[in-house]
């Protein structure tokens, strides 16, 4: 997949590196600010209360 992406990015080496960095940043932001907040309540790491 990564090879496919790399090959389909337009431009020369420098342009590809910049685009790759942007893609990584975009995916990280999506995970950190959208996906993780949504799935976190369903994971057992942050349960601090006692209940039945």
């Amino acid at each position, binding site marked *: *997949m*990564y*090879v*496919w992406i*790399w*090959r389909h990015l337009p431009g*020369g*080496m420098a342009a590809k590196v910049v685009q790759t960095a942007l893609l990584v940043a975009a995916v*990280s932001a999506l*995970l*950190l*600010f959208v996906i*993780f907040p949504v799935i*976190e*309540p369903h994971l*057992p*790491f*942050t*349960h*601090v*209360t*006692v*209940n*039945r």
Partner: protein
Amino acid sequence: MKVDGVQTAELPAEPLPPSGMSGGDRMRWLARGLGQTLITLGVVMLLFVVYEVWVTNIFAHAKQQATRKQIEQSWSQGKDPLKGSDRLKLPSGQQVTIPLGVGFANLYIPHLGKDYAFPIVEGINDADLEKGVGHYPGTAIPGQIGNFAVAGHRVGKGEPFLNLNHLGPGDAVVVQTAKNWYVYRVMGDDATGNVSVRDLQGIPGREIVSPNDVQVIDPVPDNPGKKPTRAIITMTTCHPKYSASSRMIIHALLDRAVPVSGKALPKELGGTL
């Protein structure tokens, strides 16, 4: 470009469907795909750790600052979410209702740092616990005879209870309401410094319990159905750190209450009251 040309030659046909490949090529294609997937999963998990211990703190910090401001504002306008004159005279069992998510007190634990201060909000849902330490609805309010039970995050989300395990017998837990400062002291054996020793009612300073052991927030902790005679604060958080398999519980007994007087702080916080 030469670089691209070389790279293309070194990484053959990976994205193409495996049909039309020789057996060895197909194996290589599969192995590479598996490797990339595993590396991706690893990176995503690392990113989740970054999120949990760092990013959530940034968001929660902002929310907790806003809650502190909300509390300050309502106090300065003479609006106390815990309306009533003297909490110590409120009969046990009688309860004021506070809207969920509204801050009504501040928590100070000097042993955990001079600047340790968190707002206490009503409710223990995820949204409430991001705004500060959450009060179990229906349990006593600060200073009231009974059990003032609160929950807080251990890791991330402002992590108010990160170092709760550092508390020992006699350490002050200070709660500020609009009207009073309440100084609670962690239970356990003062003489030996053993925080796990239980008193005559069987209440220790610290205990590790299972997540469904709700008797720790009963009016008399660990004594279901008993009528309370003392004012206790109970703090619950997850245990061990980074896990939620158990809960760490800290019980502290009300030592004294002093009326709020301007900006003066109680002695436990380096003040004069």
